[in-house]
């Protein structure tokens, strides 16, 4: 009688730990998906901001029509993009056009002094930061999830229920891939 009870207890323990691991994996997967959705939210906020920015900058930067138009165009492309791959490309494009706009705007001192403009700039900075943070959070979550998938005994359960490793959010723009120079 006794050995059977012990065996039964062990079996219950085993099942319970299996359920625990499975649930924690599901939880992490959901949180990875959630983090991905967060990036989307932040990207959308940037889209909403750009018409305002372009409108304000127009008054001062009559000569930079080309730069402004490319920002508007990149935004439209990002809004219209349907597949994830297109979307990433369009967003990267938007980021780089915004950067060039910021660089050009350095030449216009009145633009910096303008109240509305400095406000829009702050909003743009925070939008960029939020995108960065959302991406960072996503990558951290992916890292956690992927690590959890490979640990024993999680890997058995992950294989059984076909949990797949999530992909990192990577930058495609070659300029951003350049490793900063390290100085000592």
């Amino acid at each position: 009688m006794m050995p059977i009870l012990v065996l039964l207890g062990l079996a219950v323990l085993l099942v319970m730990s299996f359920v625990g691991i499975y649930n924690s994996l599901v939880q992490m997967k959901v949180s990875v998906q959630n983090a991905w959705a967060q990036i989307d939210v932040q990207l959308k906020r940037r889209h909403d901001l750009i018409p305002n920015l372009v409108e304000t900058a127009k008054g001062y930067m009559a000569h930079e029509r080309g730069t402004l138009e490319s920002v508007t165009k990149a935004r439209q492309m990002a809004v219209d993009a349907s597949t994830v791959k297109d979307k990433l490309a369009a967003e990267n494009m938007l980021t780089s056009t915004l950067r060039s706009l910021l660089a050009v705007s350095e030449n216009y001192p009145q633009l910096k002094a303008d109240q509305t403009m400095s406000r829009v700039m702050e909003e743009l900075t925070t939008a960029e930061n939020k995108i960065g943070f959302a991406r960072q959070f996503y990558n951290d979550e992916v890292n956690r999830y992927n690590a959890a998938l490979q640990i024993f005994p999680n890997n058995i359960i992950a294989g059984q229920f076909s949990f797949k490793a999530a992909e990192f959010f990577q930058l495609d723009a070659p300029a951003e891939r350049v490793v900063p120079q390290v100085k000592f």
Partner: protein
Amino acid sequence: MAYSFVQIEKDKSRTIFFSFLGLVFFYFISLLIIVLVCKYFLFRSYISYTDPLPSAALFDWPLVAWTFIGAGLAGTFHWQLSIRNLINQALGLMQAAPASTDDAQEKMLRNMVEEAQVATGGKFRIEPFIIPTAALNAFALQDFEGRSVIGITRGLLSRLSREQIEAVVAHEAGHIASGDCLSTTVTSVIFRVFDNICDAVGLMLRGTRLGRGKRDADGYFLLLAIVFLLVNVLRFLGFLGSLFISREREYRADALAVRLTRNPLALAEALFIISHRWKGAGLPGQGMEAIFIQNPVRQAMDDQDSLFSELFSTHPPVRKRIAILLDMVHMTEKELEQSMQQPLTEAPPFSVTGNVDTGVFAVSSGRNLRNACPRCHATLTESSYEGISVLVCVQCQGFLIKEPDVLRILERRERVFSSVIQDRARTILHQPLPARPWGGYTGFDEQSIPCPSCADAAPRMVRRFVNPRYTVEIDRCRTCGQVWFDRDELELLQCLYEQDHSVPA
């Protein structure tokens, strides 16, 4: 040794977890010890007065269980009592107001707090608050209804760069994300049960001595005395434990801030700047040192690394914190110091030469601390000025000098004055009497400051000119005759005296 922020976070989390458990365990054990001591004394008196020996042993399990239940209830009760309305109370005390959306700087703070929310995965809703003071500090609070608050002083908001403020906000968000604010209340409140026991026993002790005198059994008095001593010792140990946890938490929040912003340098710079400025000692809202990014009160203690500060401070030494952060970016403290363009010791603006934002500084906190600077409430330290011992405020560089010593200082000539002071002295000497009568306003207005050396009686100092010729404003206490010189006022007076009495060449 490069020590990554992930590793720090992990290590500190473990330390904090175990020491927190240890502290709670210690709380229960110490109450048990007190109960056992009481029981032992009861036994003794029982044995001495009655015949049959009690059959029960000193230590029995039901007693332990009851003690633990009682201790748990008392702890929970105190805890509930103190966390109720905690955030509103703290905010009210510091007169903090929600960051507005109209003001550019406050909007920036709002944005940064939102960024911190995004960086922590949007699990917390954090409200940004502004503390209206020129001091540099920040705090975080959280309660069980899921409300969290980050407060930043206006001084910090206007003096640090965006990246540095971001780092500070991330540090505070780190406190919230790791649940520090919640466990802080537990550690700080749990030993308040001991305070109450202490008070009660103290009262009873006084009762035995005064009231019943020697008629009552000496055993009773001895018991109370021992319990009193024991409670105090245990409470002290618990206090040390909670301070230790508080310090570990700061390290962890620093590491978390780095994880959120990936910018150790900005946090190091922010800590560096804050540590060299006025952190807000003396403002209303003291007694909550542990919730701030740097201890607003104990300037000297956080700056040194002695055993004393290792044991008794709510915050780890700033230099140690900075060193850990700098280690991540392979920099030394010297390099950081050189990269800082700003002057390191900046005096609050109560000076002839200094800058002006007096409106904010004229906060009279209503507090009157003995030997604290009447302006910025840092502790006055004894120092030698021209060979004469004076009390000086290291923060705003004001002097408190006994009246007879003032003339002695004026007679000495070792000091060389800056050209600003000399110019100023010349103008004063050659300018006709000011419109104000020289006795000045001997009345007291809201600008008159309390005398630091007669703090208990709290007389206000009289602001007046030295005399009709030397129109330097000083503050003099009419009770003890000490004179307070704000920064540069003493030098100006010396310079005046020197110019006046110098033999024409």
